């Protein structure tokens, strides 16, 4: 473009040339050099310091010969805006420093070869000196952004691949742990103990994976700590012996402090089961999510709480676990109901949600 501009302008003003032959030579040099430069800049490995210096040198030389070709007191230089090519190349390659350097060299040459400096000349020079560094700076920023993006893409791809590998490995580990647990229980004796340990690890790992997957689905909220998935958090309780947690497949997102408090309350209920029924006694946790509330149930099949024991404890001034559970749920604005009998003990906790 700048070449065409320069060629056409020089043809148009051919009568300005004092030495037309030299002028033609200059234009031919410009055409030739442009072709060489286009070819040379196309491959990254040819973009050497030498090429850039040569590019700038050609532009400077053309500027410098202008008085010889056009005579003193010329108005426009032979290359004209064509010198912008070299300027931009420097700006692209060496960022703002290169842009500034090339701009200063070109401007200085341009000013030195002129007899008198008009306001328009000054304006052009000023624009070149401002434009060079700015283009250079923009190129730098773009390159940095591209590098940043490449890094981010690489990180994301690596993370996805790691997750895929981890899933395959975890699945294999879970399979083997379940198998050891199953075979161990059948063989009995020491193997049964090994099987029990494998089973504990299996359920712990399974809980961990489930929690991780749910967290990974919402990376934006990690650390933000505003909401947590109650279903996933309760799922962690399955790592306790003989605890089964049933919950919906979709996340149940509540404010983090509510989730933590509810998990603590359910944990307290389960502790109670371990103390009163036995450390290996089975217990079940059920979470149900409604539009306006969540319902939790913690159930065991122990002997139940004997009639009057809670009242007696209260009369003796001991608040006991059940009062503490009721109190904590009441603080969340909910209710906790205890039913007990020969069928076992069940806590039913209902907490309303302040939904937007």
């Amino acid at each position: 473009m700048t070449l065409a501009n320069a060629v056409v302008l020089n043809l148009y003003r051919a009568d300005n040339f004092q030495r037309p032959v030299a002028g033609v030579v200059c234009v031919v040099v410009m055409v030739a050099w442009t072709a060489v430069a286009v070819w040379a800049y196309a491959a990254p490995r040819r973009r050497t310091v030498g090429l850039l210096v040569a590019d700038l040198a050609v532009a400077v030389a053309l500027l410098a010969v202008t008085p010889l070709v056009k005579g003193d007191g010329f108005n426009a230089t032979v290359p004209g805006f064509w010198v912008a090519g070299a300027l931009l190349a420097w700006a692209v390659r060496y960022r703002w420093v290169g842009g500034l350097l090339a701009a200063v060299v070109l401007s200085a040459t341009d000013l030195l070869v002129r007899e008198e400096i008009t306001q328009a000349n000054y304006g052009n020079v000023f624009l070149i000196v401002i434009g060079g560094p700015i283009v250079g700076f923009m190129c730098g920023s773009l390159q940095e952004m591209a590098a940043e993006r490449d890094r981010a893409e690489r990180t994301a791809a690596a993370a996805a691949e790691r997750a895929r590998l981890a899933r395959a490995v975890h699945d294999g580990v879970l399979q083997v742990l379940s198998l050891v647990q199953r075979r161990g229980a059948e063989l009995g004796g020491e193997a049964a103990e090994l099987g029990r340990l494998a089973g504990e690890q299996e359920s712990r790992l399974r809980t961990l994976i489930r929690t991780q997957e749910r967290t990974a689905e919402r990376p934006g909220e990690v650390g933000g700590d505003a909401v947590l998935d109650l279903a996933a958090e309760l799922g962690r309780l399955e790592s306790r012996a003989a605890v089964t947690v049933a919950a919906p497949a979709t996340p149940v997102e509540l404010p983090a402090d509510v989730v933590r408090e509810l998990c603590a309350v359910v944990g307290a209920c389960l502790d109670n089961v371990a103390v009163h029924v036995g450390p290996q006694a089975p217990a079940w946790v059920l979470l149900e999510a409604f539009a306006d509330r969540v319902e939790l149930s913690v159930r065991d099949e122990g002997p139940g709480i004997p009639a009057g024991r809670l009242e007696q404890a209260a009369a003796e001034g001991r608040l006991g676990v059940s009062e503490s559970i009721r109190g904590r749920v009441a603080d969340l604005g909910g209710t906790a109901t205890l039913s007990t009998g020969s069928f076992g003990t069940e806590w039913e906790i209902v907490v309303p949600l302040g939904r937007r």
Partner: protein
Amino acid sequence: MSADTAEQAIRVMVVDDHPMWRDAVERDLQQAGFDVVAVAATGTEALARFKAARPQVVVLDLQIPEPDGVGVTREALAHDPSARVLVLSASGEQADVLEAVKAGATGYLVKSASREELLDAVRRVARGDTVFTPGLAGLVLGEFRRLADPAASTDPMQPQLTERETEVLKMVAKGMSYKQVAERLVLSHRTVQNHVQNTLRKLQMHNRVELTRWAIEQGLDED
């Protein structure tokens, strides 16, 4: 189908990409008198052998190479609706299990279940019963709750559970056996079983309606 199959050996296919597990399950089933007519390690193998061997029950791991367990369930049951799928999964991936059940699986067991639990589950699934774990009951219950939430869907076709079905499903999710539920509610064991089966049927029906509607919207019915 119930009277005959109880006498004859039940034809079972085991699908699992983990050879150790596949062998262990196969051996357990054979020792207990089941007829293991096929085993497969991938979804493609499973579907090809399913058509050739015509098993009554497919014991299926969900984490298998393409197509996955959900796809195998859907394809296999489309080919032979009288077959039964029992999902036996080590993965705690809740959504997968729910998808498999929606696709028509009628039983779910985690791999840590004992040998006896597995054999019992295969027998029950072959009889046409549904095998629920508390975890699966919780998932199904959660799915109905989600569908019933007016904010989530305004679907006039959305499936709903009767009060009794909800009550039964909730008790199963709380870890009660069908027998315990029957005692609590003063119902017969059979009635409890029927209620549980109905919940699954409603969910599967809804899934089919959704799939059909999706197909029509996508213009897949035109060719």
